């Protein structure tokens, strides 16, 4: 079945492919078999539309030109012709059936995520992505790294403006990777055009998709479903590498994760925590509570000079660890590790004039989470 219609796509590809892709006018062919199948479908249906358009508009403009009242055209009075009508109903149906067959085949392929060699959990959060390599103990969040000064225009915009992140998703090429996708808050949609993967992440539900990348490279995309204020600032970057490089990378990440886990038990200095906390705050918290903790009421309360926060450390920890139900504040118990949680709470209790002097140790947080 597949080979029979591939020639059609090959023609479309040859006719209009590479050049259009290079100048960014058209859908990318992409770097997976699925993405080039989709590109073929796209070009096929496009050319079908062009041909129908030329015929229909050709007939229309011919009539407009030929039968002008100003040139003394006399109107005929026919107003139906059953066989013509049957014909122009039948031809579109045949074209549509011809189109439905390859589309069905591609769709079935896209839905077949069996036999994957690697599972990656993708979780949408306002407004970042969290990646978890299932069974490998490696997980991290990926935030946009374009500085706000570039957005406001105080600084020149870089080449990958808005499409760059602090930690890209690293994937091996030539391996079938299955994505399990969900969300912690609202619906997001994880999209990378070159991989032809676009899938909504839905809170409380898990969607599946898969990818098998043919070429190493850096592939960029972004959130496609309106998810709140920073919907436009939620890029996806996929770094596709050779399999060996991927194994090395994964091993490094595992080791780093183990070291971090050991850090939970030791006593931390306040300066260490504040320094770590500031970077966590800026990448995770500042999109809602703002860079200076001033918040954006009523949706996002201020943290600076927040009486309740200053007076009640247990309340503060509870909100960060368990979230606020029915509001935008998510639970960070599984998103951040105890070191990061302790650091960010310590930081926000000692920044922007909240000079409480409190130090929250990672070990205390670990205990709270365990309860």
């Amino acid at each position, binding site marked *: 079945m597949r080979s029979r219609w591939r020639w059609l796509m090959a023609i479309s590809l040859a006719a209009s492919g590479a050049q259009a892709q290079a100048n960014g006018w058209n859908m990318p062919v992409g770097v997976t078999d699925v993405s080039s199948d989709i590109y073929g479908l796209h070009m096929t249906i496009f050319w079908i539309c062009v041909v129908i358009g030329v015929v229909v508009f050709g007939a229309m403009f011919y009539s407009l030109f030929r039968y002008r009242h100003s040139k003394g055209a006399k109107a005929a009075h026919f*107003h*139906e012709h059953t066989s013509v*009508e049957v014909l122009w*109903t039948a031809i579109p149906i045949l074209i549509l059936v011809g189109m439905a067959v390859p589309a069905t085949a591609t769709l*079935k392929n896209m839905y077949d995520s069996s036999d994957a060699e690697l599972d990656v959990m993708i979780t949408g959060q306002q407004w970042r992505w969290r990646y978890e390599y299932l069974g490998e103990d490696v997980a991290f969040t990926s935030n946009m790294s374009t500085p706000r000064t570039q957005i406001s225009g105080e600084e020149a915009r870089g080449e990958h403006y808005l499409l760059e992140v602090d930690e890209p998703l690293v994937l091996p090429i030539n391996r079938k990777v299955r994505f399990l996708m969900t969300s912690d808050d609202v619906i997001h949609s994880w999209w990378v055009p070159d991989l032809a993967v676009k899938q909504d992440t839905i809170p409380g539900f898990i969607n599946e998709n898969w990818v098998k990348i043919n070429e190493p490279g850096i592939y960029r995309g972004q959130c496609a479903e309106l998810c709140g204020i920073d919907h436009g600032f939620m890029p996806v970057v996929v770094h596709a590498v050779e399999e060996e490089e991927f194994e090395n990378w994964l091993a490094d990440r595992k080791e780093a994760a183990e070291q971090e886990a050991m850090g939970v038990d030791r006593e931390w200095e306040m300066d260490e925590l504040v320094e770590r906390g500031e970077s966590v705050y800026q990448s995770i918290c500042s999109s809602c509570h703002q860079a200076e903790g001033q918040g954006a009421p009523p949706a996002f309360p201020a943290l600076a000079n927040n009486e309740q926060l200053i007076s009640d450390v247990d309340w503060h920890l509870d909100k960060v660890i368990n979230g606020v139900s029915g509001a935008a504040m998510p639970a960070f118990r599984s998103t951040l590790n105890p070191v990061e949680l302790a650091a960010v709470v310590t930081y926000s209790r000692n920044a922007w004039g909240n000079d409480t002097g409190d130090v929250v140790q990672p070990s205390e947080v670990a205990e709270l989470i365990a309860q």
Partner: protein
Amino acid sequence: MWSVVKSVLAALLGVQSNQKREEDFSSGKPAAYLVTGVVITLLFVLLLIFLAMFAAR
């Protein structure tokens, strides 16, 4: 009966002649057309579901 079915099928495709339409509107009972229309629509939905299930196998 067959003429009613034919008219409804023509309606689904959007093709009908004036002469046939005149006949429908002068001799047919509206209820017959409505019932046939609903039944054919249901059959059409079932056909599409069957087709989709067949294609998804």
